[in-house]
């Protein structure tokens, strides 16, 4: 049956859909695999998926909340900013062996307000959704205001299940890392 074939294929691509409880994703130990998955997760977000079962068709079995599915299928702000730009802060957190890597970038104007934000995430649907939400929330805020964004806000907004709370923490860390990078760049610029 076509749906079950897609389910098997997607469960290989998305181990979390196959097993509701924790699946050790540390089995992905080769960095090149991680990079391939990162580029696939990015390309997935910019193309309509036709060949694999989307999480929406599995939602009654797996229980992903609609908000996570929405961010997974239509992630906001996927992409890159020029990391050498002095107005751009880049936060890169996580490790492929742990299953999640997030790159979150923010661009500020001269007033310190964040005007643009982009992300790229390698990881599960919850990780992608968490970082997508993070990029949405940082826009229009100042650099100091975004430090008040807490992982519990992201987790509550997405209704993350217990095992996926770590994704929201990583998203919070990514915001802080981006702010920290921006601040250190601005310090260097002042010193020069």
């Amino acid at each position, binding site marked *: 049956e076509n749906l079950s074939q897609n389910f098997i294929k997607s469960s290989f691509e998305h181990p979390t859909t196959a097993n509701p*409880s*924790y699946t*050790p994703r*540390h089995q992905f130990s080769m*960095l090149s695999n*991680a*990079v391939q998955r*990162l*580029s696939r997760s*990015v*390309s997935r977000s910019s193309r309509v998926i036709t060949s694999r079962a989307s999480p929406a068709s599995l939602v009654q079995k797996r229980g992903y909340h609609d908000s996570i599915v929405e961010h997974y299928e239509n992630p906001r702000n996927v992409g890159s900013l020029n990391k050498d730009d002095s107005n751009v802060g880049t*936060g*890169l*957190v*996580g*490790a*492929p*062996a*742990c299953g999640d*890597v997030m*790159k979150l970038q923010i661009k500020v104007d001269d007033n310190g307000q964040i005007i643009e934000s982009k992300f*790229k995430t390698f990881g599960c649907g919850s990780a992608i959704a968490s970082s997508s939400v993070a990029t949405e929330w940082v826009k229009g805020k100042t650099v100091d205001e975004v430090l008040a964004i807490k*992982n*519990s806000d992201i*987790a509550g907004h997405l209704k993350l*299940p*217990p*095992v996926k*709370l*770590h994704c*929201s*923490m990583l998203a919070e*860390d990514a915001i*802080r*890392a981006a702010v920290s*990078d921006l601040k250190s760049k601005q310090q260097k610029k002042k010193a020069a």
Partner: protein
Amino acid sequence: MHRILRLHSIYTPRLSTVLHGRRNRLASLFNSRFFNTESEYHYKADETLENMQDILDFYFEENPDFGSADITYASGVLTIQLPQGTWVLNKQTPNRQIWWSSPLTGPRRYEFAEKRNKWVWSRFIDKQDPKQDGNKFSNTVYLGETLKQEMFELFLEKKGLNGLDDL
């Protein structure tokens, strides 16, 4: 065509990436915080999580009026299901950590401190991240201590949880 993402400048606010060369240098600085072999880690983590399961089983058997508690430990994941929510404690082997997720305290990572023979909240190990939440659990350093405080918060009973002081 996607450019290869260079990950050589990974920034982790928590000291959670274990790289072999660094580990040996850091081991001396942090009192051999990391395990020497992965099997040591598995032994210690399994032992810790199984102990927690036993202690909690006993606790809820002794106090049936606290409600139904479903406590399972399988494939390195300890799941505690109470009416108040679900706790998930799992082994994170690449980092040699225990990852914790609680409805009261959220996600945390615990690393083993051999000097104290206990699992320590990684925030207290990594000096880069000393932020305080200001909530009542922000100073629970050890794994067992955190669970004990939470159970006390919910049920106002500490009797039977003394085994958690060692974890």
